């Protein structure tokens, strides 16, 4: 990363991943490196249902959040916006949909 910008969640995390949770849901996890990283992503001022809804074009009421300090993980689940393997589905396993979340930069909401 260049010196003139702040790191993204993808750069701060051990891993950011997404996957189907059955055919009708998508789930994502931010695996942070330590309690400090966890505190960044668990901060509702930075990351909440509204932010995820904006990133993925959803109704915030459909977004489920799980904050798990024991694992330094924040997990997000929401109904799949596009039916799995339908004509408009470009990601059958929903395995590349973590990228917009991983591109978020803490401190610049």
């Amino acid at each position: 990363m260049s010196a003139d910008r702040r790191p993204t969640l993808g750069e701060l995390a051990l891993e950011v991943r997404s996957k189907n949770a059955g055919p009708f849901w998508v789930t994502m996890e931010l695996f942070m490196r330590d309690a400090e990283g966890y505190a960044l992503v668990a901060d509702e001022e930075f990351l909440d249902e509204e932010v995820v809804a904006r990133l993925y074009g959803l109704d915030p009421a459909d977004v489920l959040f799980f904050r798990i300090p024991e694992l330094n993980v924040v997990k997000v689940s929401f109904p799949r916006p596009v039916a799995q393997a339908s004509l408009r589905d470009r990601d059958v396993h929903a395995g590349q949909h973590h990228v917009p979340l991983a591109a978020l930069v803490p401190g610049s909401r």
Partner: protein
Amino acid sequence: MTSTAHPPDEVRILVPSGMLGGGFPAETVERGLALGADVIAVDGGSTDSGPHYLGSATAKTSAAAVARDLRLLLRASATAGIPLVIGSCGTGGTDAGVDWVAGIVDGLLAEEGLALSVARIYSEQDAADLVAELDAGRIHPLPPQGPLDAATLESCTHIVGMMGAEPIMAALEAGADVVLAGRATDTAVIAALPLMRGMPAGPTWHAAKIVECGGQCTTDPRSGGVFATVDAGGFTIEPLDPAASCTPTSVAAHMLYETVDPFQMREPAGTLQVREATYRALDERRVRVEGSRFEPADQHTIKLEGARIAGYATMSFSAIRDPHILENIADWAALLKQVLAARVRQTLDLVPPAYEIDLRLYGHDAILEALDPATGPPREVGVMLLVHAPDQATATAVAKIANPLMLHLPTRDMAYLPSLAFAYSPAETERGASYEFVLHHVVDVDDPSALFRIRLPEGASR
């Protein structure tokens, strides 16, 4: 292999891999047997690769890959005298999937000269029977689905019910050495024998969830299988690859994998609750888990999965390297859609929804489209055209009309016709029927095994 009057102190489960046909080292099974496995359990299917496999009743895995894994597992079952349980046979868990795996098993038993008895459990459902359940108010939607109608049930090419542990336990109780189950929860396949031997439900279902993806719960997800020991107070888990480890984090984190809610998981008979569970390292490779609870449900429910044909698809694929077109790629794609729609109307007299297209710009924004956080001109772009129509001929006719455009369409400002790079010839590939999942519902049942047909081996009886 009948149940004992007094529960044993513990039940040991060998899970060689996350999916039958996925491959595992032979040492995985040898090590599991050396550790005293009481049962071998492996999952044979999933919805994760899409509705095609259920809808068409065909397997994602090749017969050769399934046979390779089965040969090692059948030998191990016979050598150790322990049962082998396989769930969701043939990917979708249809009756055809069970029979497909059973045919492979029969061939291997004959080749290997093994005398193992094989039970089949069928989980496919008749739409008319389910319509009766629907009319009786016994079918309920799971979020985010809405209510169901009879026409949706009747439109499915295949419907399966997802069995819990009970039908598998019944087959084991009846003396089957090998149980080939249709659609089952990933966990039921693993939980059946420990439950039958009197192990507590909380640790049993939690252990089953942790090991259902094989090495995924270890520090090396590509390593061979895992080994779980369930007892009255909890369970212990270790990888079968001596070089891999289970850590409290790797084990706890597996509750996150492919789950909506990491703290609870609904099974047909009740709900596993793991919020209070503790994960403790016994040494560098083994983790002890305690405090998992299973809350029996007031109403036993069976989840339904169903797929139907949504249409027929034809695909065409070309590619662009010309920097001028790439600088204007979004405009070029818009022009292609516009010209294609006009030509389809002109030649076939069709307008959407009589056909539908999806134009995907791989290298530009194909995967995330408007959600993509990145911008900037790509170096090259693969142009995939997918056409869906009610019949294959129409889908292919539309794709063929698109062919000259995917070869020669210029941008609006170009004074000449470029020639773009088709990836192969002929450009059009007929993809056949395109399926969609339409059920995400549960049906109330009084008897956990009522929706499933158990075919016991000849001569087997209690």
